């Protein structure tokens, strides 16, 4: 099947990788052309934050996409996309601590404790660290698939906290954070649905496997 061939081609991975770098490239381009507005640091902070949430959403969309289309090869991109979410989260966090706070650790710690939007944003970021660290095949092997998977469900928490972080940050126009909230909500609902259906299946309540819904008990 052509789709499968495209998805398993190593060039597709290269292409996805290149696409993942485009937001960063765009920032570099805009910086060189003086298009980062009069407040470049704020612009960079917002852009990298936006792309963190977007990559989290794209990553969370892989499993539903794979199940709905029944094309398992989509999973080849999940790790890379998740790492891109982490990458942009790192840039976002670095911009904040470096360019916004100038590495003033006591200021940063005060912020984290005092300002709830920073508290949840910080938590979302911290929760992504173990996921990035255990993103290797070796880590999956060492942890064992089940435990690895349980750990990586933390990404749900990160995504939810990320959206709350954004929602609490804006002054009055909440349309964009609400759009993200919808997307994350739908993607999590899909998993809930899959889990409920899967549970029903595994308790032996159904027998009709030929018309199986495009979901499985597997989560991810």
């Amino acid at each position: 099947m052509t789709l499968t061939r495209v998805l398993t081609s190593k060039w597709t991975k290269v292409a996805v990788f290149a696409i993942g770098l485009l937001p960063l490239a765009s920032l570099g381009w805009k910086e060189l052309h003086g298009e980062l507005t009069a407040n470049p640091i704020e612009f960079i902070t917002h852009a990298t934050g936006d792309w963190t949430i977007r990559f989290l959403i794209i990553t969370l969309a892989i499993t539903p996409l794979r199940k709905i289309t029944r094309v398992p090869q989509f999973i080849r991109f999940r790790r890379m996309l998740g790492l891109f979410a982490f990458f942009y989260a790192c840039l976002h966090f670095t911009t904040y601590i470096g360019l916004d706070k100038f590495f003033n650790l006591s200021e940063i710690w005060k912020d984290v404790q005092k300002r709830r939007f920073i508290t949840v944003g910080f938590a979302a970021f911290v929760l992504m660290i173990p996921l990035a660290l255990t993103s290797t095949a070796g880590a999956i092997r060492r942890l064992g698939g089940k435990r690895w998977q349980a750990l990586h469900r933390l990404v749900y928490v990160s995504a939810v906290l990320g959206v709350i972080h954004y929602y609490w940050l804006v002054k009055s126009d909440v349309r964009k954070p609400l759009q993200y909230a919808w997307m994350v909500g739908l993607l999590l609902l899909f998993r809930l649905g899959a889990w409920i259906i899967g549970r029903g299946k595994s308790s032996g309540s159904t027998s009709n496997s030929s018309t199986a819904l495009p979901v499985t008990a597997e989560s991810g």
Partner: protein
Amino acid sequence: MLTRKAPELTYSDVTPKDVYLNRRKFLMGIAGAAVTGAAVIAYKKFARAVSLPAGPNTLASKLTGVIQGPYSTDEKPNTLNDVTHYNNFYEFGTGKEDPAQNAQKFVTSPWAVSVEGEVSKPRKFSMAEIMKLAPLEQRIYRHRCVEAWSIVVPWIGFPLSVLINLVQPTSRAKYVAFESYYDVRQMPLGPDAGISLPYAEGLRLDEAMNPLALLTVGMYDQTLANQDGAPVRIVVPWKYGFKSAKSLVKIKVVDSQPATTWNEANAQEYGFYSNVNPNVDHPRWSQATERRLGEFRKRSTLMFNGYGDQVASLYNGMDLKKYY
């Protein structure tokens, strides 16, 4: 039903070995990209020329006969381009660059400002009349946004007190309410702003009469750019920027504290007074420092935005933590 358990499927099952071995390259690519990005930013920081010519500002026209007014700072003004392309004017969109884009066709002529309320001589002033009420002065003011960025702007106008004196406030006059123009046909993004419009602001009468409070008709030798509140606005430099209402259509002298837009939207975050105060944080961010547009490091925010000599006495005996 296929109920495959994920643990049986590891990456090595679906990923050819040569591809996942490429992860090292991937990570190095990311590191390289980060370094490049940082280098680009650092390069620009040092190479930062005052960028870009001023954007098209065809509607603004040159103001002549402007005299130098008092209270100007000797700090370096921001570029016209920065001031006109990074600001808030929620009627034209909530992004910082939206007003520049969406206010271009804003029709500001003919224009009149109704001055009414607790006054003996209520009156409507046409724009032409306003321009002739007093000599136009240039005042270079610091402007501190509640969002912790700041600019320095050479405004052109005259003291608001000139206008208020003309209509003769009565003895019941205690506050002044300002109302901005709002027409959804001209401002289609207004309903999405998340704040109630028309935009309403207010000052205590003695604040409005303070010589710093400027009825503003121009900036940088020109009439006001549409996105900066054309054709007439107030500038109250010791308060956060949102207190300086734009595109005024009504100034009403009243006997009690008027409702104001941001205060109604979120009273905990935006007080009626909203004096620039480094010691009272916005609930979500510190107000102790600010980023002057065009500067890399943040600078300390000054009490009353540095205008304490002129305005501190207005607040004698007031708890500014309570009346933030």
